[in-house]
Each structure stands twice: as C-alpha cells, then as structure tokens.
C-alpha cells in the first residue's frame, strides 16, 4: 500500500487534449514511444516486431470510434494516456511503493527498481493507462516526459512532453491545472473542459475539450439567407450587364 501526497501538490501538471481538433494522426503516440524508449527509465520494448503478433509497450494510444448514427453521427479520435489522477488508485494499490505521486507537481510515476510487475496498478486504473513492458517486466506509464519538462539542456519552449511538442493539429496542451491563470486552465474554463469518467471519483488531472457541435450553421454567424435570383426579370446575364454599367 502506497500513500498519496499528504497535502494537495502546489502544482498539478497535466495535459489538456482538444477533441475538436484531434484528427487521430497518431503523431503523439509515436513521438511518445520514440522519446521514452530511449529516455527515462527502461526502454519500451516490442515483441515479435516483424511477425504475426507485433506488440509492445506504449504510454499513449489514440482510439477512434463513431458516436451516433448516419450522417448525424461523429467520428471521434480519443488520445489516452495516464491522467495523473489526484486520487490515483494505481498508487494506493501498489504493494511495493513503486507507484507514487510526486508531492511537488502531482505527476504519477513508477520507480522501476521497486516494481515487481504484479499488475495490480493496471488492474486498478479505470482508464487502462498502464502497460507492462514485455522485456523489463515493469509497469510503464506516461511520465509527462519528466526528463523533458524540467530539462535544463532543452531550450525553455521545448520543455514540454514529446506528444505536445509534436502534435501537428495543436490539439495537446501542457501546463499547471492548479493555477487558474495558466493557459491550460483558461482553455478548460473557456471550452468546457471535462474529466474523463468523473463518476469514478479518481479526479483526473488531465482534461478533455469537447468537440464543438457539428451543425449546418455557417460557423461564421449563424444561418444565412437563401440565395435569391440576381435579377428575376433580366436573368443573371441582365444582372451582369447592369453591374458592369455602373
């Protein structure tokens, strides 16, 4: 049994993901794999990479699904990684203390030397955000690129998770959700950002921004009037003549 931070961390670092602009391109998924397999801590291994059942450990995946029927439905791309919950069951369930939530910024990590690969945390996570690595047999999860976001070897504007840096549609945002003045908090406020499965009570830090309503409206000022004939009497060509004679 592992404890959560005694008091609310002063910072709650996390992601805000815009479902209105995510096109499901998988850029974040691969950038994450690429950065983290060569970064902190053990690599993200792949089994049978050129065979019948290629599989590996990934910290971030994008799921695509349809909601609603026919043309009124929507296709949604849903990126999913660890949400760094305030009440992280993956932490409290850990029998060895490997899984922990950082006091200073709320990031949930795994101390791999202590991880025995029992899988309890993955079982406890309602979001399916943890994957056991096939080689090291330790639990892998999103670190929010902790080896990037504070990294003094990187220029300041690159101190972001790899997924945020690479997102071509700018659908991913990183910041402090405890600070109401942060850009991410403002986005959540303006766009009605929501928690994933709030009823579960884990109080995830990451937020999702909903797709804006799909509609027949113009998006630039409501319904527009139907087009009338330019010149009911003289027809279009008559209208052209009149216009050119101005």
């Amino acid at each position, binding site marked *: 049994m592992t404890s959560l931070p005694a008091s609310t961390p002063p910072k709650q670092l996390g992601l805000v993901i815009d479902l209105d602009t995510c096109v499901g391109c998988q850029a974040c998924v*691969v950038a994450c794999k690429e950065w983290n397999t060569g970064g902190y*801590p053990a690599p993200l291994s*792949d089994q049978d*990479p050129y065979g*019948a059942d290629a599989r590996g450990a990934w910290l971030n995946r994008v799921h695509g699904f349809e909601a609603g029927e026919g043309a009124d439905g929507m296709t*949604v791309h849903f990126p999913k990684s660890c949400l760094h919950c305030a009440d992280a069951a993956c*932490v409290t369930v850990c029998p060895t203390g490997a899984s922990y939530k950082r006091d200073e910024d709320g990031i949930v990590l795994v101390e791999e030397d202590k991880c025995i690969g029992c899988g309890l945390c993955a079982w406890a996570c309602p979001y399916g955000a943890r994957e056991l690595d096939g080689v090291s047999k330790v639990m892998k999860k999103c670190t929010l690129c902790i080896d990037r976001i504070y990294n003094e070897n990187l220029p300041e504007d690159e101190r972001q998770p790899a997924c945020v840096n*690479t997102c071509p549609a*700018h659908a991913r945002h990183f910041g402090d959700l405890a600070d109401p003045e942060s850009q991410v908090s403002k986005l959540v406020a303006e766009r009605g950002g929501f928690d994933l499965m709030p009823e579960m009570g884990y109080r995830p830090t990451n937020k999702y921004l909903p797709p804006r309503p799909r509609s027949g409206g113009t998006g*630039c000022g409501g319904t527009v009037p139907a087009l009338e004939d330019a010149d009911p009497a003289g027809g279009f060509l008559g209208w052209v003549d009149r216009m050119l004679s101005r």
Partner: protein
Amino acid sequence: MSSRPLDTSPAISDEARYTTCYMCACRCGIKVHLRNGELRFIEGNRDHPTNKGVLCAKGAAGIMHHHSPARLTKPLLRVGERGSGAFREIEWDEALSIATEWLDRIRNDDPRKLAFFTGRDQSQAMTGWWATQFGTPNYAAHGGFCSVNMAAGGIYTIGGSFWEFGEPDWEHARYFLMFGVAEDHDSNPIKGGLATLKANGAKFVSVNPVRTGYSAIADEWLGVTPGTDGLFVMALIHELLRAGKVDLDYLVRYTNASWLVVDNPGAADNGLFVRDGDGTPLCWDREAGATAKASSVDARPALTGRYDLGDGRHAVPAFQLLAERYLDPQYAPDAVAERTGIPAETIRRIAAEVADAAFSEAVELDVPWTDWAGRKHDKMVGRPVTMLAMRGISAHANGFHTCRALHILQTLLGSIDVPGGFRYRPPFPRPAPPGPKPAGKPDQVVPGKPMGGPPLGFTTGPEDLLVEADGTPRRIDKAFSWEAPVSAHGLMHLVITNAWKGDPYPIDTLFMYMANMAWNSAMNTSETIRMLTDKDPETGEYKIPRIIYSDAFWSETVPYADLVFPDTTYLERWDCISLLDRPISGAEGPADAIRQPIVKPSRDVRPFQDVLLDLGARLGLPGLVKDDGSPRYPGGYPDYLVNHERKPGVGSLAGWRGNGDEHGRGAPNPGQLDAYVANKCFWQDELPADQLYYKHANRGYLDYAKRMGFIDDAAPIVIQLYSEPLQKFRLAAEGHGVVQPPEQHRERVRTYFDPLPIWYPPFEDDANDEARYPLHAVTQRPMHMYHSWGSQNAWLRQILGSNRLYVPATLAAENGLADDDWVYLTSRNGRIRCQIRVMQGVNGRTVWTWNAIGKRAGAWNLDDDAPEATKGFLLNHLIDELLPERGSGYRYANADPVTGQAAWYDLRVSIEKAPVQEEGAEPQFPSLARAGHPVPEEMAYVGGGKVRS
C-alpha cells in the same frame, strides 16, 4: 509518499543534426538527435517553413524505417527465374558494368528501348534530365497514377494548383471546403491549418465519401458519392451565378472572362480566342463599341453579348459561354442531388454560406500594392472562402474537368491569391500552362544523342503531341498521344502492360526506381506479376527482356528485377528538394531544402542519384562527362546539386549562390551545401507584405519572380476559365488542322476536350452493369503510413497491422453483414476476400479500405504469417488498368481521357458474405524468399543509450 531522486535534466543526445524527412512526400524539416552514433530521437525543426516544429507519426517512426530488417545490403543479380527471389550478390562495379553494357547498346540502337520510370522520386529534376541526356522520351515519375488531374487541372486554369503549388490562407479564411484530400499531401501544414481555422471560428466543410481523419473534425461532412464531386461543384457554380454572387471586378481584371471567343460553327477558328495581329486576345470594349486588347487598362470589357467582328465572324465573351453552361438546369441542385448523394437543400445552403462568407465578410488588409499595369491599390481585399482538393477528386476518369471546375468556382468568388482565399506558392503562379513542351518527336530522338528537350511538359495543341504521322503514340506509356494529350506527368501505370504487349513497340530495358509496381502501386496486381514473368514461347525470353530496379528495401517488386541497385535510407544521403521539381515553398516565399547524411550506411548500398550519375558517366552521356570523357560530377549527387546549372545561374538549389550572397540566380558556390547545413538544411526567401497576395498580377512579385528565374516574362498571369488548348484538340477532332486524331479516337477527343468543364459518369460506370456492381470502392491512406513503407515499420504496424473493408451500416443491414464477417468483393476484373467492419460515416453506396497495408508473404522481411499478408488485402486486384473493349475493339486505359490519370477510385464492386470457414485474405501468392537482415524476436530500442544506467 514523498518525491524521490530523479535526474530531470539528462543529456538529450551527443549531437543534433538537421535534415529533411522522407517518411512521406510532405518533406518536413527534422532535427535528428544522435547518441553514441545511434539515432536517439527525431523531432520537427521549429524553424522549418513546412512543419514549424511539429512532426507526424511517420516522421517520428523514421528510426524504425532506418532500422528495418528489410533493407537491402548489396547489389543483386538475378540467377533464378523472375519472382523466385534467387539472386547472386555482386559488387557495385559489376552491377554498374552490366547496366552500362545493356544500356549502351540500346542507346546507340534506339534509345526509346529504355523505359525509365522513377516512382515516388523527389529528384525528378535530375532523373528527367538524365533521361534527356540518354535520349529516351520514355521517362516519367509516378504523377500519372497519383494526382496529375489536380496538377494539370490547376496549371491549365490558374497557373498553379494545391499542395506544392498553393495553399489555403488559413489565417484569414472564414469558410473552408475540402475535397477528397489524401493525408500525405502537405499533411502537417493541413493539420496546423485546420487548427488555425478552428481557433478563428471559421467553418470547415469536408466533401468526402468517408468520415475519418480531417473529415472527422469538420463542422459539416458531406458524404459525396465517389466521382460526382464535379457535379456538386457545378451546382454550386449554378447557384452562385443564379444569385449574382460572383466577383465581376475580379473576373474582368484577372481572368479571361472578357476574352472574345469566335462563334463560327464548323470553321477552323470556332471556339478560339479572337486575337489581333500580334496574337493578343481581344475583348469587346462596351464604351468604344469595338474590339480592344483584352489586356488594355482603358477598355471597359463586356462579359456578355454577341458581337460582330466586322469580317463576317461573330464572337462572344468567354464568360457568356460559361454562364450559359452552368445556368443550365442540368446543373441545378435538384438535378444533381440524387447522383451526388447530397440533398438539393444542402447544396443550396452551402452555396448561400459560401456566398455569404465571400461577399459579406470580405477581408481587407491595409497593405498598399501595385498591379501589373502600374495601378496602385491602397488595400488588399479578399474573399475569405478557401478550398483544398487532392486525389479523391483527382483519381477519377472525370477528374481533370472536376479539378478545373473547382478552380473556376474559386475564381468566380474572386478568391484566387487574395486574403482568405487560395494562395500561390512561389515559383507559382506560372503561365496557364507554362512551357516547355514535351520532347520526343521523331527528329528529337536520335541514337547516341541527347533528346532535344525534357521528356515531360505541357501541350497546348495537337502539334505538341508525341505521335507518328498516323497518330500512333511515340511513347511507351502513350503519354502525349491522342489517348492522353495533356498527360503532363506520364502514365507510369501503363508501362508494364504496354511493354509486355509491345504496344506501341517493344522495349529492351525497364528501369524503375522506388515504385512498388509488382504490388500496391500497380492496377491489376495479379496480371502485372504475370506480365513481368511472361516469356515469348518462341525465344524463351522474357517479354520485357530486362528489368533494373532500385529500392532500399526487399519490396514485392525487387524479386522481379534482373539487376538490383540497393538504395540508402533518407538518413544516409545527400538529397535536394528543388524549386526545379516539387518545392517546399509557402505562400510567404520560395523555399528549398536538402538532405544531408546523418549516419553512414552500414551496408554496401549507394544513393540512387549517385548511381545514376555514375552510370551516366560510364555511358558517356553528354552533360554527365567532361570533354575529356571523365565524369562531370565525380563527387556524385552533392557535386551535381552544387555545380549543375539548368540555365545560367540557375541550379538545383536557389540559396547561397555566387559568393554565398546571391539567391535564385548566381554562379555555383562550392560552399553552398555548407551554407544549407548551417541554416538547418533549408533556404527560404520571405516576400515583402505588398507581394504576399495577387501574385498573378502584382508588379512587385512578377518582377521578383522573373529575376529569380521562376517565369520568363513579368507579364500578368491570366486565369483561364475558358481553356483554348482544349478547344484546339477538339477542333482537330472535328477535322481541322494538320495533326488530327486517327478515326478511332476522333469522337472521344471531341467529347472530352471541352474548353469549359463538363461532368460525365466515370467510365467504369458505363463499363459495368449497375445492378451487378452497385457499389463504389475506394481507398485512402492512414495518417500514420505512407504506402508500403509505413506498413513494414515495427512501430507503425502495431497501430495498424491489417486492414478491414469498411461497409456502410445501412448496406450491412441490407446484406446481413456484421463486424468481422469475411466477404467476397467482386469487380469485373476479379474477386478478393476480406474482412469487414461496419461504419456509419461513409457514403451509403461506397465501401472503402486503407491503402497498401496488405503485403505479399515474404516481402519486406516480415514473417509469412504477418497479418499484413494473412488478413491485409489490396483493392488493386480488382482494378483493371484498361477499360473494356469499345466498339472498335480497342481498350483504352482506365484513366482520364485528357491527362491519363489513373482512375483508381472509379472501381465498382459487389459484396457477398463468404460462407462460414472461408476466412483469410485472398488472393494469396507464393511467399517471396525473405531477404535482408536478421529479424529480432524482441526489441528494446534505446537509441544509443544504456539500458538502465
């Protein structure tokens, strides 16, 4: 639990170097981190004009591309039967000697016996030039089976097109219409652009049979029936004309709307522009009541009416013809609704919204500018409606006219190169169409000599065609013949078929680069494989006698070659993305880029461009050797990039010429590549604010473009609503002129060379019984894969290892189909078996799948039981490269009759549930012998780092 010690500032890498991505054709700038000499991390270059720091999934997976076990290791000489995969590894010198011997003989006999087709080549400026030096007209890259309709439709209309040639003004647009866009075309800029549109609250409408990717985030998705986009566009034009929602001032100033067209039915000049003695087109000056030069600033041109020319002829303004055409009730929303699958009321509403955005929300930028005639304007005024289209409308047999219609729609709104509209990317705009003409006429093809010009170009009339006196095509792919007169990119998809048949003549050597023509790049894959291995029963020789192929990987095509040149990956070479070829410019200014070797090849492989230069020097090709016979570019491709001049002062790269301070034009600079490397491997020139719009008519920009060598003449580029070159071909078909089509092609040319866009059903509709093959079948590319390169990638294939056939829910219900069912999909060309998934967001008469996921067992060094081979499938087997016989018995290409663009998306099919226990993808082929590197059972990639230090 308190926090624990953790190094949050580890070193990123030992070294970071810049180059250009090649995981697809988008050509983003990348920053490659190396650790202990290994690839640690690839990220976007933040300073690069294309991707501005972002990178897609393909780009990030470049590490696994580079480490692919399918990489070839050594030149190969075939020792078994074609397709057996039995090769002998040989040294480069032997490989080059063999190729030299083969090619030298045919060059001095008949250089046309070399067919050189380079696939997804990004060095076409060099490979095309090489073909010219060799003396063969039989050269093209893959454009003919990609998007030549889009390119040619644009070039012949607005002197530009989408992607490399132009882009939406994301920043100022209020309304965006996207048609059938393939993901790898400008993929990162499009994603960024969509985000900008959304942030600005603009409306995004996607016209696409399938609701995935970009369409998934559109405000409105219109699930159009494949091949009917042209009708939809023409209905929008109909509505805008009816309501007078067109920009007449724009049309008068920047288009040929006012140019007079001879109305003289049956005569040789019917439908041509009225010109004065200098050849200048004329308009009707309403003030003077007489003709005037259409370019006259003082004239008040008529757009309507019919005028007596005083010489017995009459003429009408082009616009009058255009208005008559599209005001016709056949283009009314009610008339097209059923066919397009888009309700008439929706079409009317979209037209109203487009008109509202264009005319009620005009964008005005306080930027004074001067037009070509010297008139000063104190503002840049724009119509903020923008559009984008790609292969979805291009890969149909009616695609050329549809693309032209789309550009005409943009032009009527006045939204070409204005704020909020479409924007040209320099070196575009160019005259519509630009020079030069394709070479390959009888006097231009002489054994042992270079050809008198480049093999590809833009025809403007029958006299430019490459045909014999009797009308027979002169090229092996029949490009620039009466069967495809405007085939600006050639017809790579017909080369194997024609070479096998010896139609129009037999060839000796087929030399290909980077196109998987024995698999996913071919129509009619099974038959193509047979043609590659078919022998003449009398001689016992292969019908295509010799095949040379260059590829970096053990693809499905390699086993069918006689001689294989193993290429490097993109991280191991010098390369160039040139303004002479397919530039990476943005609307803000021209740009080009290089690739530099980031790592040394671990294998005995060479960059194809180096090999080609070496081969050319061994053959003694003019231009490739010095006067003393020694190689002109002994340093290989980088030597060529720096020192080759296409015309004085103009070479492969525009940046840092002369002493390093000249751009565009300037003497070769030995330090040029160093300058590129120092600038993160790209060059960009930023245009001043007063040249950012109206480039086609902007004095400052046109002067600049001439100075840079983009255009020969700083005259304004006039948008061609009415296309006179098309009418010239039509007149020939009607019996005028010296060069006329053979009788068998006459009616076809007359029909499809309409100077104003027309819509006709895709030819496959006619070729098929609607009741028997009621469904359309199309493919698209997943955002994270590019052809067969992506689906062999250890990381990307975990995201998508096999493809499904997506079936509309309504259709599934009708046919009793459910998720995971196996079905037979049948076309007039064959039958495949595949597994389905039911989908809501797809046109109700259309099934679709992801392209190029299916692989042949043994290829790409994947296990025989890889899902790509056992469950993955290609629609290619169902697509015939030829249409059924017509009355005369002749079989035309399954292609656009104007450009020869392969009509991939015209496929018609039927679907039936497979009996229980009939599972697995079909057809299957014998496994190719695997080749390449040892394949790991498990992989923990650390990028040169230590595991758990």
